[in-house]
């Protein structure tokens, strides 16, 4: 197993440290000791020492959502995501990936998305077809929104239309590389996917990334790997907040009380927590969960839901419990992962909407 020196040091630092246990959304939901950064590090430390084969640990590596809660929590700045993604890459190189991961990667090769879908929902197809093709701004929906939360993708398009934004959505939208990065780490295939994506987006002036996972790839991984993306990248929440601030969208303030579910990649990787609250405060008032902003708890991960659906259901149930404990009545999401997970286990009497739906209701 060829971990980088930095990863080896991180593994050895994390293997006996439990200080981020309380913050892991997977571990908290499943109650399983293996679902901690410490457990993954301990397993991989035995692999690094040649005591265990990677096969003994790799399924556990895939039980991490890469949400970054442990990294954020670490007061001495160790980053368990580093060795988790390296382990995925090593497993890919060694042909030791779990079968269900191989299957998802084959789906990406065959259809361009991990779910193996070949058709968009009719409404989304029609919505995209109604847009001009020669705009300076492109709304990048991402594979999760396109194939898993079609209604919210349509709502996002509708919202930008109502704001009078001249924009398009690519009918053959490429992958940002997020899905491959999640499944295989920094493999060459991931790099090639990112390069192809950059090439198709570079003709635009502005890219509005609907899914924060894609925004994270554009803003962080593309830069880290030296893949040139000339277009300005804005998150959907950031862009929407600007539309409201500039008067292009004028929601009427209602009596609604919103509780925002910060997407982990938006709040932690991109350090963006304010625009969503500006949007919701323009539409009503907000009520915060204890774990909010950069301390947010992940509510869902669509890729993981493909191979560990029961655990991911528990993650969503737990987040609903946290919302209910503070008396939240309307939970608002800003990414497909959280929305799709929370929708499946929505408690009676609670409401779940996406942020674009919240604004549309107030126009």
């Amino acid at each position, binding site marked *: 197993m060829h971990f980088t020196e930095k990863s080896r040091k991180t593994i050895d630092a994390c293997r006996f440290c439990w200080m981020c246990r309380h913050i892991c959304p997977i571990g908290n939901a499943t109650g399983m000791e293996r679902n901690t950064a410490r457990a993954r590090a301990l*397993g991989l430390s035995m692999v690094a020492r040649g005591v265990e084969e990677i096969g003994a640990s790799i399924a556990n590596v895939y039980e991490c959502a890469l949400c970054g809660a442990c990294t954020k929590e670490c007061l001495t700045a*160790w980053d368990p995501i580093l060795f988790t993604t390296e382990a995925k890459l090593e497993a890919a190189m060694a042909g030791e990936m779990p079968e269900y991961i191989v299957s998802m990667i084959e789906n990406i090769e065959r259809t361009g998305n991990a779910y193996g879908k070949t058709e968009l929902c009719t409404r989304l197809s029609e919505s995209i077809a109604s847009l001009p093709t020669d705009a300076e701004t492109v709304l990048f929906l991402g594979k999760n929104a396109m194939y898993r939360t079609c209604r919210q993708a349509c709502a996002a398009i509708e919202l930008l239309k109502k704001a009078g934004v001249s924009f398009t959505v690519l009918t053959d939208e490429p992958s940002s590389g997020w899905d491959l990065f999640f499944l295989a780490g920094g493999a060459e295939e991931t790099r090639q996917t990112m390069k192809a994506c950059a090439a198709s987006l570079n003709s635009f002036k502005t890219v509005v990334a609907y899914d924060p996972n894609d925004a994270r790839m554009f803003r962080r991984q593309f830069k880290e790997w030296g893949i040139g993306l000339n277009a300005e990248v804005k998150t959907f929440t950031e862009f929407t907040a600007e539309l409201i601030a500039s008067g292009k969208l004028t929601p009427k303030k209602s009596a609604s009380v919103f509780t925002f579910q910060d997407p982990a990649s938006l709040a932690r990787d991109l350090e963006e927590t304010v625009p969503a609250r500006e949007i919701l405060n323009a539409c009503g008032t907000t009520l915060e969960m204890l774990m909010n902003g950069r301390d947010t708890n992940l509510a869902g991960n669509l890729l993981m839901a493909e191979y560990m659906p029961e655990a991911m259901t528990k993650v969503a149930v737990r987040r609903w419990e946290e919302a209910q404990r503070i008396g939240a009545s309307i939970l608002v999401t800003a990414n497909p992962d959280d929305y799709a997970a929370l929708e499946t286990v929505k408690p009676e009497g609670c409401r779940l909407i996406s942020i674009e739906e919240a604004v549309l209701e107030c126009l």
Partner: protein
Amino acid sequence: MNKFLFSMILTELEDAVGIENCSTRAIDKLTHSVDYFWLSRLFVDRGEKMPEADFVVSPKDAKEVSKVLKIANYYKIPVTTWGGGGGTQGGAIPVCGGIVLDTKRMNQIFDVNTDSMYIECGAGSIYKHIENAANEKGYATMHYPSSLNCSTVGGFLAHRGIGVVSTKYGKIDDMVLQMEVVLPNGDIIETSPAPKHAAGPDLNQIFIGSEGTLGIITKAQMRIYNQPEERRFRGFLFQDMHNAFLAGKELLQKIKPSVMRLYDETETGSIIKKIVGVEKKGAFMNIAIEGIAEIVAIEEKILLETFAKYGAEDLGSEYGEKWWKEKITFFYPGHALDLPWMFGTMDSIAPFDKIEQIYWAMKNAVESNFPMARFIAHFSHWYEWGAMIYDRFIVEEPPQDPVEALRLHQQIWNCGVRAALENGGVVNDHHGVGIKLGRLMKEQYGPAMQVFEGLKKQLDPNNILNPFKLGL
């Protein structure tokens, strides 16, 4: 165990807790074989495997725990309870194999009861999560150990844990009202509805500290408190520890601070200097007083007057506040003691008339018998009658061979703890006994040990619960 019998037992356990909550996966066995005990960490660091369980089960409630224990009793298989795995004494290591029973699925918060000021929760709840639940309602648990983020309610109870504001709010055994416990035979019992009674001995206190040898705690009611209106810190520097003890003792006859920590000159000059920034030589003492603002102001006046009598240099509030902010930072990788060093915390407790003597006896014993070892100490939990000593030894270059290292480790522990016992201390203050100190329990208790042994024999005749721990 032969394959056939193994498979039979596995299916029974799966039937008890659900297939998905009963594991024989390598990763589950590995992660439950190493706790915070230095020797377990050393072994895996050297590429040696620690003893592993045959089965790892995660029951969701007392009923499922009961089913597991009935199976274990029938087949006479050891059961080791695992909470957060943050214990330092090897108490959670399944040294005889068998079943590890992980409590963390029992993590429900059933009630935040502000009428009677407690939270009822599953024993597998991470304490930080019940602190969050208290905070959401404007209250606090006031149990703030360094392992707050990682250890469970049951884990703290099983090892008689303590937090940094203990002098005002008490130890974990002061914070529990009622518990649900599953006995080794599978019977589910509840302790009395309230802890202060004359209905015989306190059942809570029989199971608190029993380290999973007498029963498995599955539910508990833990106290919550008002958030203080004000919390003020004051740092002091004493030129000798004797005066610090006199000052501390006198202060405690007048008021109850929340935080009260005295560091010896060596620890002041090393860890406190590094993390808190105290540059001066001497013994640093940090005091926090908290509660209603008007009372805090009066208590601060009493504190300053009392400590001035004993020549304490008032360092103001800055260092104390910095310590509070960094109180958990001490335990993160990079700041915490870690491999390749050998280290151990030999905490003990005694009345004031013995504690200083214990400090010097332990220091002399460790440093004179093991010249390669450094000895540092602080005194972090105080009572009207005495204080605990949190003393640590550090060996920067332990033997590479794990068995040789184990031998040296045990020799230092025997030497240090025996020095404490000979001078009126106890085997441990708040980390427990585990497998690390079991042999020394008999030396402390002598014939009194038969009380524990009698309980064990009556409750667990097949000796299935956590064998070789607590000296039982």
